[in-house]
């Protein structure tokens, strides 16, 4: 087994084209190789020293979050907190400070777990993954990237270089809320993200996506009825019902499918409510779970 420490993107791409696998923070890859769960790849290329991958760039139309940006940065970076707050809510819930210091958004997205916390907020914000290889660079919608638990449509020689998010219109807000049994080192039991844009008091657009209730992160469809309505009890109830209906959760030792189905509705309602409050200009600190006292209490 070998590890090469890359300092440029070209070096990574050439390594991948020769069969090496990327390692960023290693918080999924190394932990996942334990206890017979899998073995480490024969050739690793460390991508955590490449400064271009660690940048957040605000362009005229989109914001580019380098794949190597850590959760610790996502939860505090002023641009992300101000404009893509749901991503910060999610990053702030990941693991412990140690996990957040080295764990990256690229690793979270490319690991492809249906329980990944940054996935649902990225989906509601319309993010695309930028994938690069020695031959081409392409942008892929996230619902085409994730094809099953732990599986992506990216080719083995493709590096995720960035997550690209359209800049938000005025009067927009986003939020991510997760059901958890304890306040740290938790995996989402279920989670929901929402992005809302308001026109006066009325919702002019709303997107909701769900964590850990299907083989991949899923978007909730059929929310057109709440567009044009205020984010009131009736609208929130409609979101909640649609989310519970469209979820396809499993039962395991952490929660039954019925409990998950019910609670995903509760989480979706809270996410939309928080996103709408943020869209109206209210500051709700990151993460929503702590600010509003949802999820586990102290």
């Amino acid at each position, binding site marked *: *087994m*070998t*590890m090469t*420490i890359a300092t440029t993107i070209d070096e990574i791409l050439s390594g991948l084209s020769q069969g090496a696998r990327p*390692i960023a923070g*290693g*918080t999924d890859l*190394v*932990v996942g*190789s*334990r*206890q017979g769960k899998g*073995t*480490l790849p*024969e050739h*690793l290329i*460390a991508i*955590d*020293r490449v400064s271009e991958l660690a940048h957040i760039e605000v362009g005229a139309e989109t914001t580019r979050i380098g794949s190597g940006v850590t959760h*610790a940065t996502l939860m505090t970076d002023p641009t992300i907190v101000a404009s893509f707050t749901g991503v910060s809510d999610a990053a702030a819930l990941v*693991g*412990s*400070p*140690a*996990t957040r*210091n*080295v764990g990256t958004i690229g690793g979270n997205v490319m690991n492809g777990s249906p329980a990944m916390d940054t996935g649902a907020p990225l989906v509601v914000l319309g993010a695309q993954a930028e994938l690069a290889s020695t031959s081409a660079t392409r942008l892929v919608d996230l619902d085409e990237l994730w094809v099953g638990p732990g599986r992506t449509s990216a080719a083995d020689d493709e590096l995720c270089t960035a997550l690209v998010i359209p800049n938000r219109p005025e009067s927009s807000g986003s939020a991510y809320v997760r059901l958890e049994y304890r*306040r*740290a*080192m938790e995996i989402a039991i279920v989670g929901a993200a929402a992005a809302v844009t308001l026109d006066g008091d009325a919702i002019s657009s709303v997107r909701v996506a769900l964590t850990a209730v299907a083989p991949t992160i899923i978007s909730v469809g059929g929310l057109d009825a709440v567009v044009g309505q205020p984010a009131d009890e009736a609208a929130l109830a409609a979101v909640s019902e649609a989310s519970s209906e469209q979820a396809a959760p499993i039962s395991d030792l952490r929660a039954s499918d019925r409990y998950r189905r019910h609670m995903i509705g509760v989480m979706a309602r809270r996410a939309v409510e928080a996103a709408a409050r943020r869209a109206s200009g209210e500051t709700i600190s990151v993460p929503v779970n702590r600010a509003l006292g949802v999820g586990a209490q*102290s």
Partner: protein
Amino acid sequence: MSTSNPQAVTLNVNGVPYPVAIDTSRTLSTVLRNELGLTGTKEGCDDCECGACMVLLDGRPINSCSYLAVQTQGREVTTVEGLASQDDLAPLQRNILAAGGVQCGFCTPGMLMSATALLDENPTPTEEEIRIGLSGNLCRCTGYARILDSVIQTSVEINS
């Protein structure tokens, strides 16, 4: 299984360069303990859950049981052995002893590393911020209150 083929690397730990030849799959905690003899760092779960293995990488905490040693090349690792000076314990070490924050002591090195990083980044943490800072460290003995007290005491000393 991956083939065993040691990689020659230099690890920088507590300001000392250590040239070693290690298998790429070795985690930092096993190399610190078994190759460098720095046994202050503990392994509790070896699965990224308990924080007994916490060390600092360029000043920020990582779980050394789940970080490949060769990936620390060119970076600075700090372990609990790096906290005290020749003659004196670090203020946080003194305070955790005085507060009764050490019982069996197994979690203590990891707690000290997380708390050191927290106080370096934020010398005036609130109690909530200390709880978050130590949220990756389990202690099965003390009930945490005295550990918390020692971090608060150290923060008061730093700022007076």
